[in-house]
């Protein structure tokens, strides 16, 4: 039973590595599946700080509004997988993998007044900074919902003049499909709505209705009002940190760290075999599985692998060995103290378990704090470190134990030599 399990596990490990390296059927090789971070494939990231005195809930609201607007802008840049996150309390981090022209990208993100109200003849009426608020309201006339706009005093005056011009028939449309009496609401160069003006609006409070029948649905109205509200980037952003990583630098870093990782792993394998013989072999098999698990978790969770992340993985491999070393030292000790190999393996495991759990859990505490408080690269590092520790507890405790039990129960293999104990030591 145990034997069959061990054989199956060994096959799974080698098969898993084969699939990871060469790909199998519909599953691509793992190197194509892992999402690489900016530092490995090149790109741009910029951290911007909101220039505001708001605090608490108001600040939170302000930041998530800003985030939503920036996300829209970034998506229009046509880059794959941009990431916009709020960092700390008042900063926004925008990551643009593969962005070629850093400066253009950064400028597009940081632009504040992107929302414009434009007449059908392309005269600018007002911009987003003059919009005080936009919200949804019931559409009394058509049913359904409408958008209520409020302008500030400057905006109100401009809007009054524009609507007067329209009603007086002074505007001739230069845009195809836009009637003379329309006002185009343009966000980032895109017309998001072009309501028609029916009367002069003197007080800076306008209602946009869907016209026709039924009005806007609640969702349409909410989206449109959010766009109008948000288009006016609620706050000025200052660029506090930028990083541009050229694609060649990223690729070099990736290749180097993969080679370095391989050398490190081979060295560890050699050391384990040399010092712990058959126990080392069991540990090496477990380590192979461990590496697979860590990479597959990255793939399945869709987490991004960064350079510090690779460092975290390599460090955690070193620490994964630790769990094995604790067990093996213990098993050796038990053998030297005169127990049979079988008993020594069982009691060695039992005694080592609490040590492993206590020592790894304390490291996880540090990892969690690092993940919570860290930004960017530090987060990536903490994440792989934590995945690594959990996977290492599993492989050391479950997998290595299976192999060791098997070896210790086999008459041929359960010799002092194979457990790295000299006959003299064992008395």
């Amino acid at each position, binding site marked *: 039973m145990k034997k069959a399990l061990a054989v199956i596990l060994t096959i799974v490990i080698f098969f898993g590595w084969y699939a990871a390296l060469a790909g199998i059927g519909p599953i691509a090789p793992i190197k194509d599946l892992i999402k690489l971070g900016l530092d490995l494939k090149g790109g741009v990231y910029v951290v911007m700080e909101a220039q505001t005195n708001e605090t608490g809930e108001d600040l939170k609201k302000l930041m998530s509004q800003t985030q939503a607007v920036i996300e829209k802008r970034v998506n229009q840049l046509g880059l794959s997988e941009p990431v916009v996150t709020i960092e700390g309390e008042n900063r926004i981090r925008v990551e643009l993998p593969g962005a070629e022209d850093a400066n253009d990208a950064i*400028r597009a993100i940081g632009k504040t007044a992107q929302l414009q109200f434009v007449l059908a003849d392309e005269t600018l009426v007002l911009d987003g900074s003059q919009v005080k608020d936009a919200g949804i309201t019931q559409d009394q006339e058509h049913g359904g919902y409408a958008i209520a706009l409020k302008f500030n005093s400057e905006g109100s005056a401009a809007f009054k003049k524009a609507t007067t011009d329209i009603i007086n028939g002074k505007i001739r449309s230069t845009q195809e499909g836009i009637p003379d009496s329309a006002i185009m609401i343009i966000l980032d160069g895109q017309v998001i709505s072009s309501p028609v003006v029916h009367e002069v609006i003197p007080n800076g409070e306008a209602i946009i209705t869907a016209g026709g029948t039924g009005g806007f649905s609640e969702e349409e109205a909410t989206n449109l009002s959010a766009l109008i509200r948000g288009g006016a980037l609620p706050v000025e952003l200052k660029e506090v940190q930028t990083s541009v990583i050229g694609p060649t630098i990223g690729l070099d870093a990736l290749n180097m760290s993969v080679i370095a990782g391989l050398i490190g792993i081979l060295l560890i394998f050699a050391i384990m075999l040399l010092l*712990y*013989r058959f126990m080392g072999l069991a540990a090496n098999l477990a380590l192979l599985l461990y590496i697979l698990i860590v990479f597959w978790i990255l793939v399945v969770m869709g987490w991004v692998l960064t350079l510090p992340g*690779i460092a975290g993985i390599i460090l955690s491999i*070193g620490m994964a060995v630790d769990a094995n070393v604790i067990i093996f030292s213990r098993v050796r000790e038990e053998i030297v103290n005169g127990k049979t190999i079988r008993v020594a393996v069982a009691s060695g495991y039992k005694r080592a378990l609490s040590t492993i759990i206590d*020592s790894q859990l304390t490291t996880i505490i540090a990892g969690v704090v690092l993940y919570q*408080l860290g930004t960017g*690269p530090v987060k990536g590092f903490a994440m792989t470190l934590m995945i690594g520790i959990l996977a290492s507890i599993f492989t050391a405790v479950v997998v290595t134990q299976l192999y060791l039990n098997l070896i210790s129960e086999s008459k041929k293999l359960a010799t002092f030599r194979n457990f790295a104990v000299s006959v003299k030591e064992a008395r």
Partner: protein
Amino acid sequence: MFTIKRQFSFIKHRRLFYLISIGLILFGIIIGMVRGYNYGIDFTGGTMIHMDMGREVSVGELNSTLRANGIDADIVHAGDNNKEVIIKTVQSLDTDAREKVLGAIFKQYDLNEDSVLAIDQFGPSIGDMLKKNAVKAVLIASVGMLIYIIVRFEWKFGVAAITAVVHDVLMMLSFYGLFHITINNPFIAAVLTLVGYSINDTIVVFDRIRENLNLMKKNKLEELIDTSINQTLVRSLMTSVTTVVAIIPLFILGGETIRAFTLPLIVGIAAGAASSIFIASPVYYELCLLSGGPKYKGKKKKIRGRERD
């Protein structure tokens, strides 16, 4: 397989270890203070531009181009045949300012956007935040681990383990002060990792002391701690060795970013291995002397009988 035969009395020589540790820490930190620590641009605020110039250019010439644009920078060569340059300035150049400078360089050396390999820019406010966050992270992590150890062990182990952690962090600061190595964000991350790593090492020794306290009640505490350290010595060394072995290739082959991570880790792991042997247990011993014996002593008779088989 190697074993260490001779029992070394760590407790007896503990004052010597304290002296060496404190000496090393003070030496490095004082030198660091006097000369000033070497903070990276992520702490001071500033800009780094890494460019491929296509040929080896004169630093002086490039510098005068930069100065003409109002930028005071350090320039070093990098890459194969020194064709690359790394320009560092403590001025935080925003997008417009960078474009202006790059434009001037492009014009003078007949280059374009493609020759920019990497840019890093940090506003001055970022550094303070990083430092504050780092200190906060170390404190929170320490308190978290302290609580865990108090729950699983007892307070004396907890205090001793945290002392060892503080020792390791100070040792790293001393090393960086002594050799004037740049302190940057990756350094902070390494310090935080180390906080977790070093305590891992210490816990293994303490776990053994805890176990032996139940097994060998009749022994003197000093002897018991020495035995525990000796029993776990091979393992402590092995772990540090395997971890360092895994990192060294990365340190040698990795670029500047990765080196900023791996160097402090290597230093820290060495300090962590030393502190778990020479600092943590002796401090625990002192605490026991002060408060009159460990909590576990003389308890749990049953376990003793069972464990002896």
